[in-house]
């Protein structure tokens, strides 16, 4: 740091009266200064940025809502994931993180912010660019008894490591007659984001959910994110944890129970987000929000929709889905991914097998367009389901649309 006399630039508006300094900050990636405590350390000099973080040794890794009143707290999905991982790493020294940019960069999407500082480079590993490499290494570490959390920058890149996920992780417990289990979590953003093109937008839910030996989870809200992440880390089986980039910044209310460090959600149980009696709408991840919006619109038109947040793709909560369809007699499945061999196809088959005589209408599947995701924003909007598509499909199952055309 260089001290200058009068004429140097002041740091921030609240430093009036403080010594005027010119701070030369070395060009490090995304080391944003979040709080005045960090700013304070920089002004005091010595050791540069790293000291700023070490002063925060006792602070929580995330800056959650400060309100301690009895009113519901809000928490972003990002903070929910960060706090869940932080708490599980704190509770179990075998849990460690590995992936590209998870440490120094604080995570490509800042999900792992603060964890390198808190747990050190032995437990938060920045890797060379090799998905096959770090996934295989994670699996090997899990074989030996550690509990890795492997981050894929997006699940599109998991393709380069899918051999290790399927052949090395999913099948090991079976092939070794229960001797070698793989308590590993593969996590990262899945599915479409905004304007990221074909190779960054695919949904891999059905790819992984078709494989026995894996568990596949897809959280929607912050409660889902915290509860399912904790359950995934504690689970002795390999878990694929499908997040959503556009949900990271969304806030949801969280109760005190959810904020407790022992909180977790059961794997394999769906949640009925909204009760209804006329039509069942199943969805997961971002589409749950769209389904809820559709249900709101439908209720104004006299159709009461029951929205099921799947939470768990494998195992799929067939009981909850079928019980709901037996109540409403109509079903619309919603997903962002490609239609062929998708999650909706499996739900449809399950309902036809178990609840055929309860159906009053053909099942409707809403899915993404059967094309690689276009880059152009107007085309991208047409390639993913919108709230109106869900509303129209629900109306069709209720025979409330004037024609059977998909655009009606």
């Amino acid at each position: 740091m260089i001290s200058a006399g009068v004429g140097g630039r002041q740091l921030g508006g609240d430093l009036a009266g403080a010594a005027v300094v010119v701070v030369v900050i070395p060009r490090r990636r995304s080391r944003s200064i979040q709080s005045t405590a960090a700013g304070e350390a920089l002004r005091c000099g010595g050791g540069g940025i790293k000291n700023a973080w070490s002063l925060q040794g006792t602070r929580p890794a995330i800056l959650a809502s400060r309100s301690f009143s009895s009113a519901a707290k809000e928490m972003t999905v990002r903070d929910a994931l960060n706090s869940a991982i932080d708490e599980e790493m704190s509770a179990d020294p075998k849990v460690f993180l590995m992936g590209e940019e998870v440490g120094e960069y604080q995570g490509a999407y800042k999900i792992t912010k603060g964890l390198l500082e808190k747990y050190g480079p032995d437990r938060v590993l920045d890797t060379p660019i090799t998905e096959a490499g770090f996934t295989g290494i994670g699996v090997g570490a899990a074989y030996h008894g550690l509990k890795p959390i492997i981050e894929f920058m997006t699940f599109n890149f998991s393709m380069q490591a899918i051999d290790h996920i399927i052949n090395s992780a999913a099948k090991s417990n079976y092939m070794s007659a229960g001797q070698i289990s793989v308590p590993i979590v593969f996590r990262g953003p899945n599915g479409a984001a905004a304007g990221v093109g074909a190779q960054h937008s695919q949904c891999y839910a059905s790819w992984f959910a078709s494989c026995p030996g894996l568990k596949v989870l897809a959280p929607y809200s912050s409660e889902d994110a915290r509860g399912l992440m904790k359950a995934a880390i504690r689970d002795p089986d390999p878990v694929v944890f499908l997040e959503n980039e556009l949900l990271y910044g969304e806030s949801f209310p969280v109760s005190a129970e959810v904020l407790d460090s022992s909180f977790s959600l059961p794997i394999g149980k769906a949640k009925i987000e909204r009760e209804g009696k006329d039509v069942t709408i199943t969805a997961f991840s971002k589409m749950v929000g769209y389904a809820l919006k559709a249900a709101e619109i439908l209720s104004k038109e006299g159709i009461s929709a029951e929205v099921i947040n799947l939470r768990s793709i494998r195992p799929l909560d067939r009981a909850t889905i079928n019980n709901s369809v037996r109540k409403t007699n109509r079903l619309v499945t919603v997903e962002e991914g490609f239609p062929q061999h998708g999650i909706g196809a499996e739900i449809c088959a399950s309902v036809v097998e178990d609840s055929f005589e309860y159906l009053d209408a053909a099942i409707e599947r809403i899915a993404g367009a059967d094309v690689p995701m276009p880059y152009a924003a107007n085309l991208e909007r047409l390639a993913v389901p919108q709230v109106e598509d869900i509303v129209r499909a629900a109306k069709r199952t209720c025979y409330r649309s004037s024609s059977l055309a998909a655009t009606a």
Partner: protein
Amino acid sequence: MPVHYGSKKLNYFTVASTIASQLPHAVGAAYSLKMDGKDACVVGYFGDGGSSEGDFHAALNFAAVLEAPVIFLCRNNGWAISTPASDQFRSDGVVVKGQAYGVRSIRVDGNDALAMYSAVRSAREMAITEQKPILIEAVTYRVGHHTTSDDSTRYRPLEEIEWWQMARNPLTLYRKWLESNGWWNDEAEAELRSNSRKELLKAIQVAEKIEKPPVGDMFTDVYDAVPSNLFEQEKLLQQTVTRYPQDYPSDVPVRAVPSS
């Protein structure tokens, strides 16, 4: 499945069909040992063909960066089924690839048992005390066919196979060395062969008497706990087998395996 054995008790991971996938696993396990501060290292075996796989390169690179205590042991026997090493790579064997990744590497005569023992022993010492990876390229020759359904004389000359069998046979070389030191002779050889054969026959007899595992074992160990859908499927299978016993092998027990 033949050759796909594994044993937690004996510290080796289940052999996989996916070539070279075990190399990143070895690095991961070595990292785990390093974290635990154990006086141990990991050894990962692969062939000349395996060094072409992406996993080989990722594993070596990673092991060097992580400073993991792992020995990569390449058995370069010149053949990957019918693909000779000259069609597998154009580098000077596998040892130079280790060097390229910053891994200390050595080429050893794979048919010399003493050289191999010496090299591996040193490698283990180095891997553990220095916490760094080592690559050993053991140069040898695949005298046999790839599997029992292969006839390798179709793609290589018989004279080549016979030469290696006669001149560089590691068993013959080692035996001659023992005999020259007075530690072995024909009687000891005959006795060892006879005892080994007896042991093998006894093991076969014991194994033949063991009851086959029950049909329910097909549904266990997919996950840590048997999920409800597999429990249902197993019940259904049991009912079917009980109803139509003539359609199923009689020596496979049908009794239920309890779900956890």
